[in-house]
């Protein structure tokens, strides 16, 4: 079923990076493989060399610091993020998102880095990390670089990794005061891929309802996780009431470029973007007011 390949199980990050430098385009990294084995079974992906990093415990961590924010190692499993007390306390949106990501079996083996590197625009984590203004640390044998999450996805299942690079860490800054973030997706069944999803982060200027900053990202509305910058502008500087939230939804729907498939037409998806951006923005606003 799966095409054969040569298998490596490096013991250290350095060893993994050196294998990547050696084999470049011929090599693929496998972490939990919860998405990748699916495409390997379909033979859409037939790597010559498979570098299995699932056992690299050095990249399995969740660290939080009042100054530096949250750092999640790329090989942290979804279930660990969902259940992490520090994430539940300070970045509740991440834990909520994970609770609806596939099933427990998938979350027990699949990793956050693997999910991001698969580059599926229907994935949930990328949109939430964009709303949280998270950065990604990419490592190679030669250097490390840090990029914004929204710069990572290039096209459907394509990400901005050079052939010798791997994702090593996700860095989520502590949110500014009076910030609330939320994510919801349209699911038929809990754990489904979102027919569409919306992540919204709102920062208020103080105790009132004036929006100082907003970040909005949409899942499954384009070939990449889509940042809806025009919809953000519809909120920034405004006193947020139902009318403004409705407006943001309408603008986001014009930015969305969904396709039609068995789960919904493009037209339906656009309509749902309106509903979800408004609904999620309202929740983010409520959280910002309490923050």
């Amino acid at each position, binding site marked *: *079923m799966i095409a054969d390949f*040569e*298998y490596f199980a490096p013991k250290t990050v350095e060893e993994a990076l050196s294998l990547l430098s050696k084999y470049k385009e011929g090599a693929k990294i496998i972490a939990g493989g919860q998405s990748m*084995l699916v495409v390997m079974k379909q033979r859409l992906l037939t790597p010559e060399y498979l570098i*299995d990093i699932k056992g690299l415990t050095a990249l399995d961590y969740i660290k939080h610091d009042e100054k530096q924010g949250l750092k999640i190692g790329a090989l942290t499993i979804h279930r660990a993020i969902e259940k992490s007390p520090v994430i539940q306390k300070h970045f509740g949106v991440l834990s909520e998102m994970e609770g609806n990501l596939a099933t427990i*079996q998938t979350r027990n083996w699949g990793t956050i880095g693997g999910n991001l590197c698969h580059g599926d625009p229907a994935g949930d984590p990328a949109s939430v990390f964009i709303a949280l203004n998270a950065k990604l640390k990419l490592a190679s044998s030669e250097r490390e670089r840090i990029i914004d999450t929204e710069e990572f996805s290039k096209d459907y299942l394509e990400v901005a990794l050079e052939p010798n690079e791997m994702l090593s860490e996700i860095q989520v800054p502590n949110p500014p005061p009076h910030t609330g973030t939320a994510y919801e997706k349209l699911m038929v069944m809990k754990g489904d891929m979102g027919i569409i999803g919306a992540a919204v982060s709102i920062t208020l200027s103080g105790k009132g309802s004036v929006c100082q900053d907003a970040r909005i990202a949409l899942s499954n509305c384009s070939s990449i996780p889509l940042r809806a910058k025009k919809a953000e502008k519809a909120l920034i500087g405004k006193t947020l009431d139902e009318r403004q939230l409705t407006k943001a939804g309408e603008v986001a729907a014009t930015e969305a470029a969904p396709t039609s498939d068995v789960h919904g037409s493009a037209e339906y998806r656009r309509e749902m973007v309106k509903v979800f951006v408004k609904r999620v923005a309202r929740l983010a606003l409520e959280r910002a007011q309490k923050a």
Partner: protein
Amino acid sequence: MKGKLRELKLTVNGKPYELKVKPETLLVDLLRQELKLTGTKVGCLDSACGVCTVHIDGKAVRSCSVLALQANGRKVTTIEGVTDGDKLHPIQQAMIDHGAIECGFCTPGMVMSAKALLAENPNPTREEVKEAIQGNLCADEGYVKYIEAIEIAARVIRGGQ
């Protein structure tokens, strides 16, 4: 070199194995074909149905979506490993007593998901039970009986009725 057999050391149901496998072998195929542990079933082979659920280091995973080599150095438990000698596990007994068996095909996966839940949380809410078996499909729609049987088993394990 492609096609080269790789060494795999793992423990399955408490028994250590040293094997040589093709790298592309899925864990479910290793269990069923090499080790003849056919209690674990194959359904969709696409990470959708949950019938191949086993434990790796105590956590429920889908054995169709894990390479056998990824279980190297780990402890795997299959449905064959949940009984205590000839004595059925309380989850199995509750499913039989409560009639939570239709055709039985999804049952091994259901037991493994339920066992992982109860090991972590001996007093789950109904929502938690539902979440634990959310990834296990039953073509006979026998979900309610399964949920009730898991709740009964939880009470038995806690020492109640």
